């Protein structure tokens, strides 16, 4: 069963296309990352799915059904900014959320505990720091233990400890079998928690699928010797490598992530009569990969 199926979805703001015929589906139980630079249409996409924005074309389904307001009550959503009544306290605000979602008010204490807001639960929202507001928005999304969570930049405004906590929380929720749809421009965030990923750029879907297939992250060993051609031909025969390529003054040998062993490379070359003048492990950063995909 697909939690979300998006079909040819488009949205224009005047003449500017914010989303162009985007289609993909989110499998049940996945942690689905929607990745893209600022202004790529991530929030627009989620906004249409939550009915706060009107699409210009295309359609979508939630839980394999044409969605209604009742469908949204089964999901916990944090979209763009924490939206609460400024003059009400955390508890008063969450009571409103619970009433709209038709969930039990008894759950409020539990979700406030998860995001560490218990001590400040009776302070007005207007007195909260940015990070606390974000935590409250996450608490609101968790209210009633929904089977699907939609989190748009969930770690916005959080300190490093907060970011780590949310990451752990997402992993824990995923283990419980919940489906999590997460939009982010933070690559390591996506890499660390997501099972699936869709990449958007200028409102176009570039690719989507299993995170390990899309964000393959090879180790690269950079080597050099007096005869680069001979070095390259030798290294092609080295077991474990996935790709060998000559650059200006070095040879790059790719290995699957985490399998590169500099000692083994050095030994292999020496045994084949080559003395290396340069040997360095270069991790191909996710940023490079991302830039490759989006450029």
């Amino acid at each position, binding site marked *: 069963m697909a939690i979300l199926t998006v079909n040819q979805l488009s949205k224009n703001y005047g003449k500017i296309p914010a989303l162009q015929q985007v289609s993909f589906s989110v499998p049940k139980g996945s942690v689905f990352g929607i990745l893209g630079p600022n202004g790529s249409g991530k929030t627009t996409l989620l906004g249409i799915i939550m009915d*706060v924005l*009107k699409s210009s074309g295309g359609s979508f389904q939630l839980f394999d059904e044409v969605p209604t307001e009742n469908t*949204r009550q089964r999901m916990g959503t944090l*979209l763009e*900014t924490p939206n609460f009544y400024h003059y009400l306290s955390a508890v008063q605000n969450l009571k409103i959320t619970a*009433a709209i979602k038709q969930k039990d008010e008894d759950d409020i204490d539990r979700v406030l505990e998860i995001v560490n807001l218990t001590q400040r639960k009776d302070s007005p929202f207007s007195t909260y720091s940015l990070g606390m507001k974000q935590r409250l928005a996450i608490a609101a999304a968790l209210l009633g233990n929904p089977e699907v969570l939609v989190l748009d930049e969930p770690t916005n405004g959080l300190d490093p400890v907060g970011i780590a906590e949310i990451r752990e929380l997402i992993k824990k929720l995923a283990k419980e079998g919940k489906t999590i749809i997460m939009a982010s421009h933070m690559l390591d965030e996506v890499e660390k928690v997501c099972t699936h990923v869709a990449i958007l750029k200028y409102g176009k879907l570039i690719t989507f699928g299993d995170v390990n297939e899309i964000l393959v992250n090879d180790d690269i060993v950079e080597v050099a010797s007096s005869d680069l051609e001979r070095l390259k031909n030798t290294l092609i025969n080295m077991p474990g490598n996935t790709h060998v390529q000559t650059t200006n003054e070095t040879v790059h040998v790719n290995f699957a992530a985490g399998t590169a062993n500099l000692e083994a490379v050095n030994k292999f070359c020496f045994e084949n009569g080559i003395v290396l003048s340069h040997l360095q492990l270069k991790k191909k950063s996710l940023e490079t990969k991302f830039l490759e995909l989006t450029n």
Partner: protein
Amino acid sequence: MMHLLKIEWMKIKNYKVFLIIAIFFTIGILLSNYIVYSVFDNMINNSSAAMLLDKFNPYDFKYVWKSVSYTSGYLLILPVLLLIILITNEFTFRTNRQNVIDGWSRKQFINVKMMLALIFAICSTLIVIITGLIFAYRTGTSFSFDGFTHVGFFFLKALSYNLIAVFISVWLKRTGFAVGAYFIYMGAENIIAQLLDFWSLKIKATSSFDPGSMGDYLPMNASDGLLSFPDNPLKSIAKSALPTDYTNIVIALAIFYVVLFYWMGRRQIIRHDL
């Protein structure tokens, strides 16, 4: 709908602005009527003025519903202000989005605001009825429903003012803009209404056609025009020169405007991005 209203009440009940405006409005109605009441009371007790006025007291049960509806009408700007603040707050806090995200439909969101406009109009009318009773009993006259239709007109005025406020709020979204626009519109409509009324006088004087007070055909002035202060017997002599009040046309128009602003407000929320 009860469930939606319960949620709306959760938003409002702890809001200080709500409490302050509600108190000001209630006190304001009592006070303004008290002032009018005491002015006439003093005149009656003053023998020479009493002769002129033929012991006319607008708070006698015979006139009270007309008087209290007209006098209180000016204070309807307070519930309008409250309604604008409550609705534009949703846009400022972006809770209009959050309500929909959490599981309201856009229709539910706007319906409950329309309901709030209706409830404010009902509450305002109830306050006016109670005020009328208090002052009428003080005059010592016996209870009467004479002219009670004016309380109905007051309700119509409250409702149309409130629905114009809902529309302007969902259309402009910002508190300052919406309040400003409301007052500017109010002023502009009154100026146009005066011009139309003047024109009506001219038409009536120069041709056989009597168009009525055309100023009363505009949205706010339609329900305003239905309310008037009771005429003391001396004043009505001057009336024959004025255009006829086609009350039924004005009532129909006032109801039409209520429906129009209801429809435009709903359309704004249902069809556009939140």
